[in-house]
């Protein structure tokens, strides 16, 4: 008989896997109500550390060409593919669906990731424009990244919702802090292990597990966060985030679709350039 080798579930901050600085964990039950795992209950200080590492990674991630970002994101999908079984098993345990349904969700999530990866070097062509102006000028509008975006991952879909939130933010050239679903955090933890081994620079993605409502006001008020995807928050927590986020005019959005161009555009800023004709 073998002794069980149990897994310690950790956070993902700045390319490392620390425990919560608070030392807290919360008990995660599976779909049948039995003990499943003890994920970290991230504190506001873990979030603060994640913002510091995300901010530090913005320049490097944005300096990579859009084409290169697309390649890196596609690489993530390749590595996810190899973990299909693990992702599916975890979805079965958490959501209580059968293996076939779980596997279908994993495949949809990987496809969704590839879809967003493909947009990296196309978004500027589709979303940008050449504007006609009254004068001898070329006038272009190009979308640029916003900076640091916090994603409250979808609460109901373990992997697909998470991927939709994260990949859209990354495709726009932003760095991200993901607050994983409270009930279904294992997919996020496994995804962090995928990200750590697939060329995504440290700090570009940071993943926290814990109670969204506890972290929400700190996310909303943090002056160094530029955008928030509140899709995974309750209406009440969203209102709190919107009030706090008004201080530095954060972009705060909720989305209904997993795959949409709007999710990328929501966290980009349009830059308009004037250039004289004939010079």
């Amino acid at each position, binding site marked *: 008989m073998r002794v069980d080798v149990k897994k310690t579930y950790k956070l993902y901050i700045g390319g490392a896997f620390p425990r919560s600085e608070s030392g807290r964990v919360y008990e995660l039950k599976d779909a049948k109500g039995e003990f499943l795992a003890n994920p970290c209950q991230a504190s506001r200080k873990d979030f*603060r550390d994640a913002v510091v590492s995300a901010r530090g990674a913005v320049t490097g991630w944005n300096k990579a060409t859009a084409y290169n970002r697309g390649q890196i994101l596609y690489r993530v999908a390749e590595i996810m593919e190899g973990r299909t079984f693990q992702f599916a098993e975890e979805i079965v345990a958490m959501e209580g669906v059968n293996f076939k349904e779980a596997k279908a969700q994993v495949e949809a999530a990987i496809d969704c990731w590839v879809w967003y990866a493909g947009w990296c070097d196309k978004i500027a062509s589709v979303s940008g424009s050449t504007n006609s102006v009254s004068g001898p000028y070329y006038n272009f509008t190009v979308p640029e990244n916003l900076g640091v975006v916090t994603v409250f991952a979808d609460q109901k879909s373990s992997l697909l919702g998470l991927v939709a939130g994260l990949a859209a933010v990354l495709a726009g050239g932003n760095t991200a802090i993901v607050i994983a679903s409270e009930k279904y955090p294992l997919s996020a933890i496994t995804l962090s292990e995928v990200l750590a081994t697939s060329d995504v620079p440290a700090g570009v993605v940071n993943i926290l597990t814990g109670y969204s409502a506890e972290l929400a006001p700190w996310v909303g*008020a*943090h*002056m*160094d966060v530029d955008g928030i995807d509140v899709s995974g928050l309750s209406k009440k927590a969203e209102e709190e985030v919107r009030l*706090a986020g008004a201080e*530095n005019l954060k972009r705060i959005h909720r989305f209904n679709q997993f795959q949409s161009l709007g999710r990328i555009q929501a966290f980009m800023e349009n830059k308009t350039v004037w250039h004289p004709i004939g010079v």
Partner: protein
Amino acid sequence: MIVDGSESSLKSFLSGLPGVDQVGAEARAAMLATRSIKTTSKNWAIDTAISMVDLTTLEGADTPGKIKALCSKAVRPDPTDPSVPSVGAVCVYNDMVNIARTHLDSIGGQYIPVAAVSTAFPSGRASLAVKKQDTQDALDNGAGEIDMVIDRGAFLSGHLGQVFDEIVMIKELCGERAHLKVIFETGELVTYDNVRKASYLAMLAGADFIKTSTGKISPAATAPVVLVMLEAVRDYFGMTGKRIGVKPAGGIRNTKDAIKQLVLVNETAGPEWLNPGLFRIGASALLNDLLMQRMKMRDGYYASPTYVTLD
């Protein structure tokens, strides 16, 4: 009189100093670094640390404009909040002293001294005549503090008398006009024993402050090094009744590091040292982090580097 100034008396005193327990010093420094300073204590610590900052720019690319901007920041670190104290001093290269002094005086910062690095900073490799002239220039331009480097080459090859004489000479130049800080560049002294020896050597030679590093090489102001230096000033006070200041410089980049230094001071030298007259922190980036932490304490939410000056 502990030593009579001769090389032999100096050597016999310094070699009679007990060695530093390396493991003990590192463990003690690490233990003190775990102290958690919160709420009102933290508020006090942040303001105290701000008032102890020697706001420094020592770059080849320094311009008069940059020095002036630094001076304005020294007087009013956060222009949006007048309750933030001014920093301890402005620290620049000797040809910038005049610009700094004039600008400080013109914006109401008369009380902020200008510190000049001297004696062929950062290497200390120059003739005695050049080192003297370097110091004299800075004094003539209005430097209130002189940060001199010791000749590490001489120290490491055992020419302690030479190092001693240089400090005495610079101290004589400073006279009553300027405070003298002596920089050891502890990263080049190799052992804690050497740091302890250098500390006593500088104090005996008349230093008003002992300073860890130039900030040009790493490691700089590590906690165990500062601990050894604080023990030296404490024991020197016991021997002579004279309080010498300590200035860690280099590598102290955030509020946590700064507060760790304050804990070290309080627990080693004692609370008498917790004032800008006896403890300074040589830094540039640190001030912004202190300001951001101060905003966090005031507003209740995390601050962004976008809201403090770039420098």
